[in-house]
């Protein structure tokens, strides 16, 4: 086994000490289960005192009691987010995301919630938001206890012009993002909604990928997937053209868009509609042909989109050099590799991490030296409450978001 070139992404190599602070919660959860398991001859007296609760209900209550819920941070159509902390240690902060019961939804627990819980429970990585626990309350609402990430998100960061940053900082953020994406793909999980405001920042400056409400595992070859995923600005051309078979390359495109945004401090490929999105992409990358992208003309929406269009050629290297001076030549090479129209030619997440950009000068800024902003708990609330794929514009205009909770010390 080899390690990723920059910062080993392996969270806990098997056999090493499990119960460092990050994993303490899980270890504890395990211990509880182990205790209940380890009773070889259960005593008959287990019924009184349990209040007539099932074993499963008891376990759930046990988990719920470990956390204290605090002020409400944000509310969306999908969830309400509260700040909270561990009962035994109020300095250990968490965010509690309570999934709303939707009266209109007649199919029980919402798919978004199931997906988010399913994938976050399996993924444990320093650049992916940690799911400490899940519990349900009496009124049958499900609550996710998530890592507390108070310093805003990457989109706020580039939008905030009181903060200045440089190429080494971008490299550091981009690397954390790419490791998160790589880890998802190694675990056969597609995120399908990578964008600046799903990349939250922890108190120590670490970037963490959040919101797995649209995630899914890699499909078996030949099985259809939906192409109506990923927030529009970040949606790759093959999905816009109606492709139903895809792999990790869709996330790599979105990741490339996020890195581009960090470098130019504006949306890289903004548009109003799906059709316009395709034309915005083609303005930069040209209209794909069978020559540049074998098989493209067989995609469902190809004829309708490009059937009668005049050929359009991609921008040359000068466009990239002018627009992305902060990335440097190697950074531009990486970015273009991540943003190839043909998904077969696009870099995989592994290839992205092998790119010389990461090891060339300048070295990525150390986490503790990264520029930080006071995004505040409010932003975390806003970011976590959203349903996957939602676009919110003009968020910064809202006064409430300017409140600075970020200065709050642990």
């Amino acid at each position, binding site marked *: 086994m080899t390690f990723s070139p920059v910062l080993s992404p392996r969270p806990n190599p098997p056999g090493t000490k499990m119960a460092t602070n990050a994993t303490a919660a899980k270890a504890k959860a395990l211990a509880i289960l182990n205790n209940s398991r380890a009773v070889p001859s259960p005593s*008959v007296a287990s019924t009184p005192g349990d209040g007539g609760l099932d074993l499963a209900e008891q*376990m759930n209550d046990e988990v719920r009691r470990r956390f204290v819920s605090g002020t409400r941070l944000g509310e969306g159509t999908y969830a309400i987010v509260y700040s909270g902390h561990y009962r035994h240690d109020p300095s250990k902060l968490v965010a509690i995301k309570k999934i709303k019961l939707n009266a209109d939804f007649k199919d029980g627990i919402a798919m978004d919630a199931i997906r988010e819980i399913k994938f976050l429970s399996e993924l444990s990585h320093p650049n992916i938001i940690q799911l400490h626990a899940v519990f349900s309350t*009496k*009124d049958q609402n499900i609550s996710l206890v998530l890592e507390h990430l108070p310093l805003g998100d990457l989109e706020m960061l580039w939008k905030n012009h009181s903060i200045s940053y440089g190429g080494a900082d971008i490299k550091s953020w981009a690397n954390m993002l790419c490791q998160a994406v790589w880890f998802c793909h190694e675990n056969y999980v597609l995120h399908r909604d990578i964008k600046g405001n799903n990349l939250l920042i922890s108190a120590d400056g670490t970037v963490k990928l959040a919101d797995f409400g649209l995630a899914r595992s890699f499909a078996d070859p030949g099985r259809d997937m939906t192409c109506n995923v990923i927030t529009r600005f970040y949606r790759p051309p093959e999905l816009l053209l109606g492709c139903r078979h895809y792999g990790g390359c869709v996330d790599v495109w979105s990741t490339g868009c996020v890195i581009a945004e960090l470098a130019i401090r504006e949306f890289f490929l903004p548009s109003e509609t799906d059709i316009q999105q395709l034309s915005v992409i083609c303005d930069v990358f040209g209209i794909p042909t069978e020559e540049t992208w074998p098989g493209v003309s067989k995609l469902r929406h190809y004829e309708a989109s490009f059937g009668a269009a005049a050929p359009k050629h991609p921008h040359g290297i000068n466009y990239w050099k002018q627009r992305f001076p902060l990335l440097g030549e190697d950074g531009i090479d990486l970015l273009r590799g991540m943003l190839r129209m043909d998904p077969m030619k696009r870099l995989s997440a592994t290839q992205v991490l092998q790119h010389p950009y990461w090891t060339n000068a300048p070295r990525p800024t150390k986490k503790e030296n990264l520029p930080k902003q006071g995004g505040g708990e409010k932003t975390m609330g806003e970011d976590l409450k959203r349903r996957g794929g939602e676009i919110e514009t003009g968020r910064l205009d809202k006064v409430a978001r300017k409140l600075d909770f970020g200065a709050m010390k642990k």
Partner: protein
Amino acid sequence: MKLSEDDIYRTSTQYKHWSFTPAQLAAQRQKTNLVAAERVKANVARQRATRAKQLDTASASESDRANTPGIENGNGEGGSTPARPGGEVECLTVAEEMKLVDVFCERALELGAFCGFPIEVTATGIQFLRRFYLYNSPMTYEGQNISRTCIFLANKTEGIHVTAEEYAAKFSNVTSDQVLAPEYLIVQALRFNFDVRHPFRGLKGAHLELWEIAKGKFAPLPHDSRTGEAAQAEMLALPTKTGEPAGKRVSVNEFEKRLTATYNAASAVLKTAALLTDAYFLYPPSQIMLAAHLLADEPLTLFYLSTKLPPSSPIHAKLLSTIRACATLLSSHRSFTSSSTIKEEKEARDKKEKSAVAALIKKLRHCRDPDKLDLVQLNQAHKRDAVQDGSLEEQKAKRRKLEREKAKKEADDFWGPELPKNGAKAG
């Protein structure tokens, strides 16, 4: 830069929360059985006391007696407590419970096939069912309801959207409320772990790898000094039974038939015996896959293993004995048939099984927990309690806020409120 399969598996909830030693598994089942039996006895006693009281008062007016509703007939699914008053309820033993859970699993497999769901969905649903009954007893919760909802939930966790209504419509006399009622109960018992790792893809992978070797395109690992040609030659001359000397070399086309037959046989085991036993609790998917492969074609499986590990390695010996143990478990299941199984013998076995199950179900009728018979009502009561507990105010405030926001949005909208997009969303 690659995580090994082991690294990935060790971080899974299946490994962390749902893998056991046989002793742990037995202890948990013992505990679940004990708790459930205690409760059944207590609840039945309480119910009898109430009924005796009712009868006392009712005996004054004889006509009332006929109208006294049996509480246990809440959903009309026939769970009457024994008629002998005062007699001790005879509860199920752990072994009997396990047997019943196995039956539920078999029925769930049929249910999945009946609905035409992909095997991963049904397989996940069955594991949900087995996990559920690790912490709950069939005496407490009825198997039919639980397995139906487990399969429904499995559709959602495997990313397939089926509405509760569509799903309920597949059965006669089932409402979507009945499908949804135990959902929270189940997700809680599953500890919100929705990911189940299956051996199906691994089997496909092994099949493809073997096929490559058969074609002479062997890509050896560092320990292996065999050339592509040598590996191919060895493979094509593999005996059909372990211990026999190498046979005559067959053609690649001929060998393909053997590979396909092996794949099909192993796949059949993975889709039945592997799901219907404790295999998932006791072994990781890769070992289950290898065990099924071993049952299908032992010499081929041993050859495959030799391409992964040097036969001299101590891990090789350990792995092989684990796989053999798993294979024994899989082949012990009733559904397993090998070439040596005699038809009459199997029929006799099935018949015996059927009557044993019928007796068990009869026994179960007499020891059901009377408090948990009607899950729909129970679920509604749960929600009602919660509202009374104080979240009512919050909900009211929420609704008012939503209405306010909606009204404002509509007022802002020059063209007036948006028209409902379809019938379902209207109103």
